[in-house]
């Protein structure tokens, strides 16, 4: 009897194992709609949005000077060469604004505010923020939000030349608040990218900790970085991220104070 019971139990386990395997290997559940939009089309939407924002948003003025540009080249080069295989061509722009903020548009377009640069104490902290934004790009979080907000049909109509809703699309893309899962995904991606780029993930923790200390927690200007009030967990995750054996942090060879003083900006002590 015991053998028959055991055989029955095995049969039962096999039946449910087969059911699980069926659902695992056969895509019964609909995939995220974002995959309906190719990277090429995402690039096109990104270009349209960037043009629209630069033309029609008086608050957003791109800052550029040789010192700032070369500093960003150094930081972004270190990150991008360690991304590995990517389908995106990254473009990083600095926006003249006192807000401590950064945002991402489709197609690998990342915007960093001068307020954030002024607030940062070293280039590693800016690299941490960029790595986080790159995480949102690689995981297609912005497109995912736009698809959910506007639907595939509307996005395809934009691609077909309908520019009427472009402004609305741009506004949504800029103010996108990611959900907790997406923030965690972007953080995890950032930690891994930073380690590969010889940047200690604690740079992100020190940046967030200072934001918390000096700004007293959640701030409306930090929507992108601080989408969720419980960022203590994010600081903890950055500190506790496993570092490979023999890891050593490589400093950026940049005079960060000189970089910060290269744009007419805002004193860091104003916060």
């Amino acid at each position, binding site marked *: 009897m015991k053998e028959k019971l055991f055989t029955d139990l095995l049969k039962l386990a096999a039946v449910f194992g087969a059911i699980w*395997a069926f659902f695992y290997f056969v895509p019964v*559940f609909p995939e995220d709609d974002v995959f309906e939009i190719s990277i090429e089309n995402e690039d096109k939407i990104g270009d349209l949005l960037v043009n629209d924002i630069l033309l029609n948003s008086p608050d957003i003025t791109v800052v550029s000077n040789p010192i700032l540009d070369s500093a960003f080249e150094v930081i972004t080069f270190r990150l991008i060469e360690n991304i590995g295989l990517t389908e995106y061509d990254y473009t990083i722009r600095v926006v003249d604004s006192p807000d401590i903020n950064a945002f991402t548009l489709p197609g690998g377009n990342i915007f960093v505010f001068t307020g954030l640069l002024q607030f940062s104490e070293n280039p590693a902290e800016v690299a941490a923020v960029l790595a986080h934004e790159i995480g949102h790009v690689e995981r297609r979080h912005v497109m995912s939000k736009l698809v959910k907000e506007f639907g595939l049909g509307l996005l395809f109509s934009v691609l077909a030349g309908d520019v009427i809703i472009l402004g609305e699309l741009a506004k949504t893309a800029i103010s996108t608040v990611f959900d907790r899962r997406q*923030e965690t995904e972007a953080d995890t991606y950032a930690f891994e990218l930073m380690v590969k780029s010889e940047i200690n993930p604690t740079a992100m923790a020190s940046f967030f900790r200072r934001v918390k200390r000096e700004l007293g927690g959640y701030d409306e200007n930090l929507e992108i970085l601080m989408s969720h009030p419980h960022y203590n967990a994010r600081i903890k995750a950055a500190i506790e991220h496993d570092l490979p054996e023999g890891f050593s942090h490589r400093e950026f060879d940049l005079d960060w104070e000189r970089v910060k003083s290269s744009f007419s900006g805002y004193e860091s002590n104003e916060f």
Partner: protein
Amino acid sequence: MSGTEEYYPLPQPDEVSIREREDAMGAYMMMFAAMAAGLPLPIINFIAAVIYYYINKSKSKFVHFHSLHSLMAQFPTSILNVGLVFWTLRIWLSGWEFSTYCKAYIGMVIIANLLYFIFSIVAAVRARKGRFYYFLFFGRFAYEVVYRVKDESPTSSVNLPPGS
């Protein structure tokens, strides 16, 4: 397995009273009510099933069998449902990824619940007719527990008369 020396004979439908049939059917039907009440904490319906089992198991072997059969069949379904609630909460609160593993698990839980519902209805109808119905594994297990003749001869006496 079928020898009468090892197992009590199974009652035939005409030997099972209406009351026993209804109690046996109730073991399955009660699970539906408990399951609905147990949402979103599926463990509650399992506790209700255990209580129902202990109340009814001494009524007759026929009722005992069906109560145990239903309880046992509910156990894995409840565990799967608890797992689903836990996983959902982790996704919601801790940012766990809604992965393919999770999707496959949801699919499996849906099928498990559907199978449990369908087979429970069949078993309830059979029980109402005074008949038996055996789920894979659980049927054999319940039969073994309820209908197997246990050797009840004492191996040693502990309580003895005075002076012995």
